[in-house]
Structure formats: C-alpha cells, structure tokens
C-alpha cells in the first residue's frame, strides 16, 4: 500500500486545511452578522404577521372618528389607547401596521415562490438543453423584460380587478424572468465544469446530472434569490398601491397606508412615515438574510 501518511503529513504541516469543525457551527459562523440581523428582522415580521390578531390593540378596521389623526402616544397630544396614533378615519395605526404585516408576508411568500418555480423551470430547461430551446427561452425573456413592469401590472389589474391577487400576479408575471436568467446562466456555467464531464463519463443521464450534480450547486443561489425577491415583493406592493391597484378594502397594507398618508403628510406625518419604516426594515431584513444564507450555505464561500 502506498504510504498515505505523506499526504496526511501535508495536512499537519499546514499545506492543506486542517480537519473540519462541526458542520452546523461552521454554517452559522459563515453566515455572520448578516444572517443574525436579517434573520431577526424577518422572524420579527413573521411573528407579528402570525400573531397580529392576538397582539394588536385594536381592530384595524374599527373607525373612531372622534379620535382621528392622533399622534403617537409618546408625543404631545397623543393618547395612550393608540400607541402609534390614528389615521384620518380614527383607525389605530399600530394595529393597521401589524395587520399589514400579514398582507406583506402573504404577498411576499406567494409571489416570490410562484415567480421562483416558474423562473427556475424555464432557466433549467434553457440552460440544460441549450441550442434552439435556449435561444427561444432567452429571447422570450428579453422581450418580456422590455415591457414596463408598472404598465404590465395596470393591464393585469384591468383584467383581474384591483386587489392583492392582482399584485401577486403582477409580481409573478414580471419577476419570473429574474430567476430564469440567473438559473440559466448558472446552469450553463455548471455544465461547462469538469465535474459535469466527469459525471457524463461515469454514465449519468442528463436528468441525473441535473438532479444530482447541478441542483445542489444551485440551491444556495436560489435560496438567496428567493429571499431577496420577497423584499422586492413588498416594495412592489407599495408601488402598485400608489397606482391604485392594490386596493385596501378589508386588508390593510403598508402600501395602502402610505398612499393614504401621503395626503396628510404635513398634518399627520406619522401616518405615512411609520409604514415606510416597516417596509424598509422588512426589505433590509430579507436582503441581509439572503446574503447571510448565501454565505452560510456555500461550503466554498470566499468572502
């Protein structure tokens, strides 16, 4: 048997990395501060969204016209009953913010997931098959991306009707291209690597190659994209409510609150400012989480 300890020795002398610490510990440490901060923000969002009915001080739709436009309770003129004040119809801002979190999470989860599924499917097909299929899908993506997204959304809303369904549909219809492009590029890059050639020599079919060799390499990328997409979805909801597509109605949303609050920005700035803060925090949370996850999930990550 050839002397193996020579190579072992290279390990101890520092010519190769030393033995590995526990998997989970290294995963978490690779993620770093981004993972923790992002994770905390997103968790907060999810908890508030989940528990809104329990923890909100008031019914978000309950109007108290006598208490309209009250500032937050810790400022002058505020009322302790309404911790963050009320809007023009006397509805509790804090409660509305909390219930809007539900809307945001709903939109983010559904829209991002659907966009991901569609985009990844197209991206994999284009990348794996190459040739004219790739050309077809790529050109389709190019044309699709040329449409102004807001315009597309307005057209959609005209067909479906204003509301959250419309918002979700608009996001999916526009953003699947983002997933498709990235997955296609990454798949193509992977296919050129030697370990795919090695897999072919080992006798793997194309399907087995995609599933067993390439997909594991795509997962960190997809997880990151998904996380970022959720942040984008929240922003899109805000944009579309400006255009009147995301109707408030029963379900309060941050976008709706911002749109309404815009008219009173001098008299009651908190009505617009507070939901903006929530949007910013959520988007930052998703972005940091996405970045941290990417670092954490990539065993070969070079920071």
């Amino acid at each position, binding site marked *: 048997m050839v002397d193996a300890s*020579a190579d072992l020795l290279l390990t101890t*002398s520092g010519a190769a990395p030393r033995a590995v610490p526990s998997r989970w510990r290294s995963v978490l440490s690779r993620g770093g501060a981004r993972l923790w901060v992002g994770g905390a923000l997103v968790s907060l969002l999810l908890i508030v969204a989940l528990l809104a009915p329990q923890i909100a001080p008031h019914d978000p739709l309950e109007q108290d016209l006598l208490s309209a436009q009250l500032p937050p309770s810790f400022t002058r003129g505020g009322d302790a009953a309404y911790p963050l004040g009320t809007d023009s119809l006397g509805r509790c801002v804090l409660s509305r913010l909390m219930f809007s979190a539900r809307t945001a999470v709903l939109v983010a989860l559904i829209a991002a997931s659907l966009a991901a599924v569609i985009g990844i499917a197209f991206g994999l097909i284009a990348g794996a098959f190459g040739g004219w299929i790739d050309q077809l899908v790529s050109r389709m993506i190019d044309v699709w991306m040329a449409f102004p997204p807001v315009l597309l959304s307005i057209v959609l809303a005209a067909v479906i009707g204003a509301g959250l369904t419309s918002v979700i549909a608009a996001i999916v219809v526009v953003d699947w291209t983002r997933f498709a492009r990235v997955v296609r590029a990454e798949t193509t890059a992977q296919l050129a690597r030697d370990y795919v050639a090695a897999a072919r020599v080992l006798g793997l079919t194309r399907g087995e190659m995609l599933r067993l060799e390439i997909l594991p390499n795509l997962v960190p990328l997809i997880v990151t994209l998904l996380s970022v997409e959720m942040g984008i979805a929240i922003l899109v909801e805000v944009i579309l409510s400006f255009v009147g597509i995301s109707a408030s109605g029963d379900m309060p949303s941050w976008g709706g609150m911002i749109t309404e609050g815009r008219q009173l920005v001098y008299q009651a700035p908190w009505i617009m400012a507070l939901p903006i803060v929530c949007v910013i925090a959520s988007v930052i949370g998703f972005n940091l989480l996405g970045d941290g996850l990417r670092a954490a999930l990539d065993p070969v990550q070079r920071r």
Partner: protein
Amino acid sequence: MSAVLTIDNLHVAIGTTNVLRGVSLTVEAGEVRGLVGESGAGKSMLGRTLFGLLPANATVRAGRITFEGRDLLRLPDQERLSLLGRRIALIPQDPMTSLNPVRRVGAQLTAVLRRHLGLSKRAALNRAAELLADVAIREPARVLDLYPHEMSGGMRQRVLIAIAFACDPALVIADEPTTALDVTVQRQVLQLVERLRLRHAAAILFVTHDLGVVAKICRSMSVLHAGRVLEEGLTADVLTKPHHAYTRALLAATPRADRPAEALKPVPTVLIEGLWAEAHRLDRLPSMRPA
C-alpha cells in the same frame, strides 16, 4: 565579487505562523542564484517580502535585506517605490493574471518606462518597440497594440520579461517564470533570460520548484523548506554531491527522461516529518517568539 542582494536572517510571520525562519542568502552581482522549494516552502513569501507585498497581518520579525548598500526593510516608502521596477524588477509567474487584461500591451510597457525613466510618450513607444524586439518578438509595432489575451502564453511571458528589463535593473526576481510554459517554449524563454541578463549585467534570483531548470540556468542555488534554507552552494556541487537528506530525496523523486522507472523514489515521510518538527522546535526558541 560584490553582492547585489544580501538577505540576512530573515524572519517573517503571517499572524502567529512563521513562514520564513531565518533565511539568509546572497546574490552576487551578475550571477543567477536559484531558490528551490516546493509549495509551502516560503519561496513566494520571500519574493513578496522583497517587494513589500506582504498581507496586512504579516510581520517581519527580524532580519535585513540589503540591496546596493541599503536596507530595503527600513527604507521609507517613497525610496523603496522608486527602486522597485527600476533597480529591482520582477518577472511574475502567471502572465495571464500579471498583465492587465483590459489594457493593450504597449500601454503597459510605456507606463513603466514613463514612470521610472520619465520618457515622453513618443520616446517611450519607440523604446517599447525596441524592448519587444529584444525579447525576440516579431513585428513589435503590431504587438504593441495587442491585448494580452490575443497573444500566446510564451509571448505574454516575453512581454513580462521585456517589462522587467525595461529600466536596466541590477537585480531581477524571476518567480517561476517558465512553470506554465511548454517545454520547448521554456527553453527559448530561458535562453532569452540568459541573453538579456548578460546584456544588462543583471543578477537574477530565480525562484522555481524545477531542479532541471535550476541546473541549466543557475550558477548557485539555495534549497528552501518550511521557511528555512537547508542547503546552498554552487549548483554543480549541490546536484552532484548533495549534503542534506532533503536535497537527496528531492533529486531521487524527480523523474528523469534518461532513467528507467525503477529509479524514482518518493520523498520519505519520516524525513518531512522530521524537518517540520525541527522547524517547530526552532519556533519555540526565545529568539523566534513574538517580540
């Protein structure tokens, strides 16, 4: 003969790990000294220390590097920068990553000439064309307009050699310049380096892991392992009558086109283990600990 470069008891550490452990070597004027070592031996660290390109957490614990009477380690930045590229030049290892991929080769050559020699644009271009002709590149004027990726590996390496000799240096550090080249191109490049060295009367510190290359171009050599010089002397002596067991083992492990297969012997594990143990033992001496 006067020494162009004297490295005296150089100790360098990266963080808490010692990478150079009391390295001493001398390059005489006009000679070619080989620095032989495998990966991890510290050869690139030595080059980087000379050029002040060490990573942020590296410290020079002790030692002196004397070049033309001045200690490079204690020179103010301005002075050192004026020396590097002009009096001391580098032929880096990988031509593909050492040349700027988005600038034409001519521009990179003239940049060096104008910075160190203060030539005008026109004069620099003419000189650059001459330099390319010196490294046996045909149609120098056309080549000046090429981008690095439009040239072959051998050509790129020649450009790097041209840049190195551009300002008539006294010392050239050649960092594995032929490792990535085909063997026929390697021979041409080595012949070229020798020719230019003689013309410019430059000394060369030739860093490599290839004992064959050392044998052909280096008059003297030092063998590096774990940041220590284990053996040194005239190449002819070291290769025919090696003193240190490591040198002997390296020679025995080098495949030769003129010897049958049976002659190949891998480097014994015990030997390497012993050498590292020695190195770590030295690390624990009070003189080697952090100040």
